[in-house]
């Protein structure tokens, strides 16, 4: 029993192969310099804010390597869901039976994990998106996401000079950051649009931190 617990396998044989590959990819992860590291900025659109009740309608992600985002390797997926809340359509614009090609949750999970690999994830108010994805993984008998993550909302607060810390806000909305950092708000409230915006917010914030010479891995990843 205790052996079982100590050597608890990270996955069991019932898990699908893509999950096994995902989990085992973390075994051999070693840190590269920041400018060679692949970051994945991502966002979700959901039917609401309740982790248990609500569902993910779309996932969008872009990869950043050396300050560059490649348009030919972006991730954009729409998910078939039974739960549908008409009142949220005005935010994300995804109709229940629209023209968008939609896939099942499990297919979305597989493709998402293959896209993010074991790289560092970036999201705005990351906790929410994490929670939503983890709930989805749970529904399919899988574990939680294992990637390191950076929350742009927190990262931005750190980029502000210490003298402003006393009157810093706790939460910066993505809209506020767009304004402050001069990022175009085109395609705001689509998951892929917000992923790109988050990526740009991340790059601009990093460059501010870099000027202050504090750009180290532990600094970046520490919540």
């Amino acid at each position, binding site marked *: 029993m205790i052996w079982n617990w100590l050597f608890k396998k990270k996955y069991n044989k019932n898990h699908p192969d893509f999950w096994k590959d995902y989990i085992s990819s973390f075994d051999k992860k070693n840190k590269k310099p920041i400018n060679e590291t692949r970051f994945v900025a991502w966002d979700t659109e959901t039917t609401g804010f309740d982790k248990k009740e609500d569902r993910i309608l779309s996932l969008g992600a872009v990869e950043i390597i050396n300050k560059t985002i490649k348009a030919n390797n972006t991730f954009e997926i729409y998910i078939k869901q039974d739960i549908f809340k008409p009142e949220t359509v005005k935010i994300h614009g995804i109709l229940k039976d629209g023209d968008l090609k939609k896939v099942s949750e499990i297919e979305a999970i597989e493709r998402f994990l293959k896209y993010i690999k074991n790289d560092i994830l970036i999201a705005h108010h990351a906790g929410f998106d994490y929670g939503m994805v983890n709930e989805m993984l749970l529904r399919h008998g899988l574990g939680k996401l294992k990637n390191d993550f950076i929350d742009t909302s927190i990262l931005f607060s750190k980029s502000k000079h210490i003298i402003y810390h006393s009157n810093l806000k706790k939460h910066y909305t993505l809209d506020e950051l767009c304004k402050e950092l001069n990022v175009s708000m085109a395609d705001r409230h689509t998951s*892929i649009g917000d992923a790109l915006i988050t990526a740009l917010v991340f790059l601009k914030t990093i*460059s501010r931190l870099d000027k202050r010479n504090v750009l180290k891995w532990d600094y970046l990843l520490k919540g």
Partner: protein
Amino acid sequence: MKNSIAERISDFLKDFPPFNLLKEKHLLEIASDVSIIYLEKGDVLYKKDEAFHEYFYIVRNGGVSLYHHDMDDNKHMVNINDAGDIFGVRPLINKEDYKLTAIANEESIVYGIPIEIFQSVTKNNVKVYKYLITSFASNAYDPYTAEENTKIFVDYLPNTSQDIANFQTADYTKNPICCNENSTLKDAAIKMSEFKIGCIIVVDDKKYPLGIITSSDIKNKIATGLFPITTAVTNIMSSPVMSDKKDLTVADAQLKMIKYNIGHLCITEDGTPNSKLVGVLTNHDVITALGNNPAAILKDIKRASRTKTLRTARRKANGLLKSYLEQNIPLTHIINIISQINDAVTMKAIEIALEKMPTPPPVTFSWLALGSQGRKEQLLFSDQDNALVFEDVAEEKYKDTQAYFLDLAKLVTKSLNKIGFEYCEADMMASNPVWCKSITQWKAQFKDWILNPDDKAILLSSIFFDYNHIYGNLNLEKELTDAIYSTLNETSLFIRFLARDALKNPSPLGFFKQFLVEQNGEHKDLFNIKYRALMPLIDTARLLVLSNQVRGINNTYERFEKMAELEPNNKELYESCAYAFKALLKFKTKQGILHNDSGKLIELETLTKEEKLKLKRCFKPLHDMQETLKLRFDLANF
């Protein structure tokens, strides 16, 4: 799979050339492979001599500067690319390493456009390539690299208004001078000098072209001692030759010459070097075919004997100006050419007037251009501002002498008016007795302006400090300038008045970063780019050179560039002022051409968002400059 990012990129690209010439599906194909690159201020995108990237670039946000390196590896800024400008197209055209360095001028986002995909969807699209070559040439051109490039880049790029010429069949030289492959270089050179030609084609017995020898080959390979004069022509010639068919169009010939960086094309029977040579097309032939060029216009002016001819020539220059602007030729180059033409026109108008006078002038004189012509930055027709200085004469002769020059000036201003330069509303012209005086009187006038400044005098006199000698006795102008600078040494009050005057128009952006528009009058709600943006820069530049005793530089942008040299710690600010001035002047000129007026009043609604952004970007250096002036000349309590 849906790619919203690519759709968004293609949505941006479609508004800018050359992408606006592409089909939507091709644009999306390109956009799907774009790299979105974030650059911090100072980040280097590519360096001179770096191997070419698989992308060329377009600025999405911010600005990227291109620098040329001189022999001592000093950097000179060639151009700043703003949103929508493409750059780094050298690899697209000739797969060469970069010749310039691209550095982010501010925090920027650029799109890397994949060359391979771009080429696969644009092949055979002549319009796209014409645009690219033009854009390439305009960035590649600057005073430092002009020598390296084929001269053909400089003035004679294909453009829409010259399409007719472009698609004409090129008029090549038939029966070109040739020499046999067995000839010695000396034989060839004798033949070249006999026929007064710059190149000779080496042919074989069947008259197939083998190679070409130009004067510079002789300079580089013989005169340097690399080969003896008795060497065979085959050792010297460039080979193989580039060839084409008889029905080649001017546009295609030009593209080929630019692409392969050559000045001569062999015309052969079937278009390949493996057939009989029938002619040679030189870049000079291409230039002549395109006609509208400054050399031809200047020739017309020099030969003119009547005002009417001058008028026609000056009108032609307006056509030239328009095509230059369309082609994005660097403004400095445009300014140089147009002001040379303006000066030549004025000079000729004076010569014509002198012939009409019953007697030659009693003493020597100097005709001065004032204001924008004096600063050599007049592009469109504007008011004529001028003055006349004549040699000192005995007091009893003064009246008659002045009367003579007033008559002369009346003839000149009248013909300038006929040519298209309006009379000056404030009557600041040499035909006005107040501005037609002896050198002693002029010195006294300037002394009075400088030593007893008041706001009215400053308003009146500032354009007189931008004078430029056009015709006559250059020494008079020098004498006057000496007197002015020595008087300036006596007082600092005048400089402070000038400084205050330069600040009278605050930065053109209001509190909410909105453009300040005219509040009332017939120009209500229009933005006055001359008074709000150009004049403050012009006034500032003048103030700076006068207070630093810099002589002989009249251009506003050159004045700022000089200041950048004198004060390295403010280099960046001065350089951005120089750039802003050029950008604003270009803007005003384009507006002027569009609306057929001076271009100084701009209807903001007609501008695109990008244009507004470009304008706003120019105001920042102006604002920073004004803040600096306030401190430097201690104007807070003045």
